[in-house]
């Protein structure tokens, strides 16, 4: 069973990645120039307070012991305590992760809804004005800072037209869909700019494939050929690319959450850095990395199960 071996190998690889990740994130606080406790508390802090924080962070113990404490804690879901908020970092993650996950998923859905029609039209209208226009759309969105687009959308649709709320994420599912539309659209447009070009090229490549030629020779209607024979095959490479862009979307959410003042992980992480709350930064970095690794793993495993060619 090659496939089983592939998945086992992929899991082993993930184990190594996670171990290295843990070491890197562990060293984050320790790599801060100077004494992390002094940096976190500021130079006016009393020696007692510094000593207490050093003790709380475990910095007064040998490094291997520190690492053992860190890793066993992380395994139990204990990521330390926020120095500013005085709550466990794990609690902050629980409060803020759902919104970030919702936002990233929402952005992916919108990106797909934008990409499929645009990519298809661009390919079918190859080198005609519409294709050129869609290409212009891509170049524009690839080159534009998402935080700027976000602010302009806030001004236009939130403030001037009053169509959308200017902050917050809402409570119910329906509210999420409404409140997070502009942020998700901002993120989705950036990704769809890349995906649209990929889908266009992929469709053009598929159009000359043998099975499509056969379908044409059989006299199938053009619409049916595109939807049944071309899109189905062409979309595979675009979906792969979308999977790779999850990491980018998750990272982009840090910025977009800050622009739209959304109570997700990203906005908390930025304020933690500015407030030198390194326990939060460390814990959040680990959560982000594990999250993305798991998504990549699931994507790969799903492919191994679906696509027989992977096991070759």
């Amino acid at each position, binding site marked *: 069973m090659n496939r089983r071996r592939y998945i086992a190998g992929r899991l082993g*690889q993930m184990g*190594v*990645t996670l171990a*290295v*990740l843990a070491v*890197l994130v562990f060293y*984050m606080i320790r*790599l*801060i*120039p100077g004494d992390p406790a002094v940096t976190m508390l500021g130079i006016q802090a009393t020696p007692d307070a510094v000593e207490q924080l050093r003790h709380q962070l475990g910095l007064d113990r040998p490094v291997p012991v520190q690492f053992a404490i860190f890793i066993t804690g992380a395994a139990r879901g204990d990521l330390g305590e926020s120095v500013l908020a005085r709550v466990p970092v794990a609690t902050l993650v629980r409060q803020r992760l759902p919104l970030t996950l919702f936002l990233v998923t929402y952005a992916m859905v919108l990106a797909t809804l934008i990409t499929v029609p645009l990519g298809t039209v661009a390919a079918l209208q190859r080198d005609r004005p519409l294709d050129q226009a869609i290409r212009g759309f891509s*170049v*524009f969105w*690839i*080159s*534009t*800072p*998402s*935080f*700027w*687009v976000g*602010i*302009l959308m*806030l*001004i236009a649709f939130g*403030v001037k037209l009053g169509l959308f709320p200017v902050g917050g994420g809402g409570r119910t599912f329906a509210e999420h869909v409404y409140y997070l539309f502009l942020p998700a659209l901002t993120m989705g447009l950036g990704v769809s700019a890349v995906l649209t070009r990929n889908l266009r090229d992929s469709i053009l490549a598929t159009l000359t494939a043998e099975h499509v030629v056969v379908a044409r020779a059989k006299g199938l209607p053009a619409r049916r050929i595109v939807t049944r024979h071309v899109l189905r095959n062409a979309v595979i490479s675009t979906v792969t690319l979308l999977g790779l862009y999850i*990491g*980018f*979307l*998750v*990272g*982009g959410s*840090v*910025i977009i959450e*800050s622009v739209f003042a959304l109570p997700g992980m990203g906005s908390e*992480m*930025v304020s933690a*850095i*500015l407030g030198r709350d*390194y326990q939060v*930064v460390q814990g959040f*970095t680990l959560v*982000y*990395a*594990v999250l*993305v*690794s798991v998504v*990549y793993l699931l994507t790969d495993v799903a492919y191994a199960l679906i696509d027989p060619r992977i096991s070759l």
Partner: protein
Amino acid sequence: MIVQERAAGAAGIRPARRSTVRVWLRSPSLVVGLALVLGVLAVAALAPVVAPYNPIKQNYSVAVQPPGAAHLLGTDKFGRDQLSRILYGTRIDLAVGLICTFIPLLIGVGVGAVSGYYGGVMDTLFMRIIDVQVAFPFYVLLIAIVAVLGPGLINMYYALILVGWVAFARLIRGEILVAKQLEYALAARAIGCGDARVIARHLLPNVIGPALVFAMSAVVLNILAGASLSFLGLGVQPPIPEWGAMIAESREYVMTAWWLPAFPGLAITVVGIAFSLIGDGLSGFLRPRRS
């Protein structure tokens, strides 16, 4: 015509290769992109000459003025001329884009070539580095590095360079893996070329194309990332005129002074489009050769 060419030859100037020019003109993206980049470079070089005001001098008597005759793009909350700040900002943002692409390109080509050519322990180690790095979302990794080093322009450079080289190395490694099996590479080795010569003279010239195309999108990505970090307060610090930081400073005025966020963002977009167009044009040249 012949006389002209002779005259040019006599003056030590090679006559223009007309066919090359014509090929270049076939790609409007490349021409427009190059022209835009040249324009932006000129602005960066001539900022002190063309900027009408001192970009960091405050003048509260003209604070938050809309675009007008005295201040073409308006003024910010400190009464600083926005046009002058944007012109000076070209220097910062362009430098971030170019330097944080060029250094990783060099590192990546070196590591990727050695890793792909020799394989073995080096290669395995390198692949593990890739695995770990792709586990971090791009912006989370950048922000984490800046968190460790501390916010600021120089640390932002370090972060972008530390993160950027991996993509180039991966690209070159993949190309070298394929190219080293091809006949010309085998032939070069068969006639006794050393490893260094095979890599530098035979393989790299053939595989560098995609890396150069990618470098153009990397410039765009780095400019956007630099502006984003500065926007979050983690990159360039005030009062240095940088476009992302300018947008951040404008946030309290977005309801009333649209010109404050609008123009710096437009500047980023124009520079981004310029490099995207060059990349687009270059990739058009690579395609026929590769098929």
